[in-house]
């Protein structure tokens, strides 16, 4: 392993390039690149990489960046790109198209709130807005988690049982622009982990097929059911890809839900992204003081594994969700999924806290405030914006 001090963007760029290079003995790698804060350094790194067999295109928009990835993937190459915020929304039509066409593209998202009004800081509203696209979504909590998840993403996306694109997210600035020590696997190990890509249904001149033509309602329903079935195969493929990851790289990647201190916990916090590491610190302090408290990292958001989530919270009867997102008129997006998962556990008091929008500080004092508020609650209420002094009109 190469240990290096890297920002999230540097680490993501290196992981993507290693994955692309690993396909040099097959049809190579190709994709479209377009800048947007805070992911720009990723695509700069990709454009500057000297691939043995790769070609990346600096295009005029995110919409075209994904379109180039779609063309590249149709032609059988390994394809990837990165985006954020409004760029991701501008790309949306082709994000859906890539999933509907079953193309195993990997995209790193540096999460940033959507504007205008303009704000370049983190929340998960951008990628979560695309939750209904046929993509897997994985939210990373640290630099190492990001590198590992990107490599894992290619393995899962390209598995013939899945064949769906994967979005790997990191919190903008909080991960993308901060530095940590990261283990970067050498190329030969990445080569061993990511076999040459052979897309059986790629566009070939010796076997003409028409892709994306008109379909009637019956075929359309069947197509969606096939995507649903592929999503339902993700857990087994993810488990296998994780086991193989451990065999090749010597460490276990983080799974769909990572539960810590939940075995005997009465109270469980659920969070995604960098909030997880802050929550860990608060939970560990309270544990030392004798509180029965644990937390769950929500890593895999699509597909959403409801039964796994229920298992992850264990016997806890009080669950608080820290949503770094907001669906106007509804509440926290992750909370909605969790509430659905807990429909057969009516005894659980589930409260949603909306925190850290547009880069708002989610620090230990804020988590403490949330926990103090939660402790005083006898029943759940509508989602609460925190901190209160900002939220009160």
């Amino acid at each position: 392993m190469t240990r290096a001090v890297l920002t999230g963007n540097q680490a993501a760029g290196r992981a993507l390039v290693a994955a692309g290079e690993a396909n040099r003995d097959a049809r190579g790698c190709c994709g479209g690149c377009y800048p947007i804060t805070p992911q720009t350094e990723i695509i700069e790194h990709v454009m500057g990489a000297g691939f043995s067999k790769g070609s990346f295109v600096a295009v005029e928009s995110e919409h075209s960046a994904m379109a180039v990835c779609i063309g590249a993937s149709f032609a059988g190459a390994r394809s990837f790109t990165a985006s954020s915020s409004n760029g991701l929304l501008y790309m949306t039509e082709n994000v859906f198209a890539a999933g509907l066409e079953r193309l195993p593209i990997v995209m790193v998202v540096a999460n940033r709130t959507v504007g205008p009004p303009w704000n370049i800081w983190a929340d998960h509203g951008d990628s979560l807005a695309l939750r209904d696209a046929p993509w897997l979504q994985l939210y990373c909590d640290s630099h190492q988690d990001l590198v590992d998840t990107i490599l894992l993403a290619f393995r899962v996306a390209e598995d013939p049982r899945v064949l769906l694109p994967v979005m790997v997210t990191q919190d903008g600035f909080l991960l993308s622009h901060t530095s940590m020590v990261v283990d970067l696997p050498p190329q030969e190990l990445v080569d061993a982990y990511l076999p040459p890509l052979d897309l059986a249904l790629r566009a070939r001149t010796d076997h003409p097929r028409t892709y994306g033509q008109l379909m009637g309602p019956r075929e359309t329903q069947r197509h969606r059911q096939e995507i649903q079935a592929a999503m339902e195969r993700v857990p087994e493929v993810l488990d296998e890809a994780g086991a193989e990851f451990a065999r090749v790289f010597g460490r276990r990647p983080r799974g769909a839900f990572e539960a810590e201190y939940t075995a005997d916990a009465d109270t469980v916090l659920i969070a995604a992204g960098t909030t997880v590491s802050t929550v860990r610190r608060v939970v560990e302090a309270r544990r030392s003081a004798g509180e029965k408290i644990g937390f769950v990292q929500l890593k895999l958001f699509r597909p959403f594994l409801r039964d796994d989530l229920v298992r992850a919270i264990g016997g806890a009867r009080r669950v608080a969700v820290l949503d770094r997102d907001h669906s106007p008129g509804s509440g926290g997006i992750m909370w909605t999924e969790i509430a659905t998962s807990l429909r057969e556990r009516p005894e659980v008091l589930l409260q949603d806290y909306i925190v850290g929008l547009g880069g708002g500080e989610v620090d230990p004092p804020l988590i403490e405030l949330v926990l103090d508020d939660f402790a005083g609650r006898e029943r759940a209420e509508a989602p609460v914006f925190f901190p209160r002094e900002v939220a009160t009109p």
Partner: protein
Amino acid sequence: MTTLLPEPGTRTRPRLLRPDSTNCPGCGMSLGLQWLDEALGATTPTLVIPACCAAVTPGTFPASAYGVPAVETTFASSAAVASGIARVRELNGESDPTLCWAGDGGTYDIGMATLSAAAERNEDVLYICYDNEIYGNTGGQRSGATPTGARTSTTPRGKPEAKKDIVAIMAAHRIPYAATLSLAHRDDFLRKVKLALSLRGFRFLLMLSPCPAAWKSEPSESVELVRLAVASGIFPLYEVFDGRRFRINARPDDTSLDAYLDRQRRFASIALAADDLRAQIKREWTHLDELARAFPAAPPTG
């Protein structure tokens, strides 16, 4: 007319457009695809088709009237998807052409930025716009390609603005080749497509493609309408090399405009004066003639 189908035994791949396409009678695209097929010879292109009538042409899954690989894309994306395909083909030493086949909506309007960027990068893509001067799939709304005076469902009193000069825009990217194609000039059509196929980099061809449903014309008169469009000067037949050298392929006769307009009810009962259109055509031709005189291309060979 010469037969549209190649001699038996001369082909090594399936026909580009097989029978049972969904194209309307008299659709210029049907003839254009057959001539394109002929110009390609034994070469198998990968078609990249944005949302447009040609996306409907193959019919409904699982059958397809396209006998070559065809990738259908979102409306504004064909030139970018084609860029990805062409790059990967090149990485793998494959010389088969990547060919966009796109309507005017996806070219003049919603796909303009994508198209311009692919041309600016000089991607190895042959882009052919079949221009029916209308949003056909959606039932006939105006586009940037709709000519002055034409009635559409969104210009019920006739379009006040002029047709966008897309060839000038593409030539301004200094791409190796830009030209117009006429379905009434078969030899010229085949020569230009073959020339375009022999070049590398971004090549742009504009084919006037009659749409009887929107032009409100007789399907049997489609080829005649193109002949009249060229003869009247409203659709100039010319080539631009490297965006700098010009060659005019046919001269207008100053007598055919009335016949062209009279045979299409899209031009009927409107405030358009043929003389106004005549003046517009004359201005465009004066400009084109001056360019061709000042910056002439060598005469065609072969």
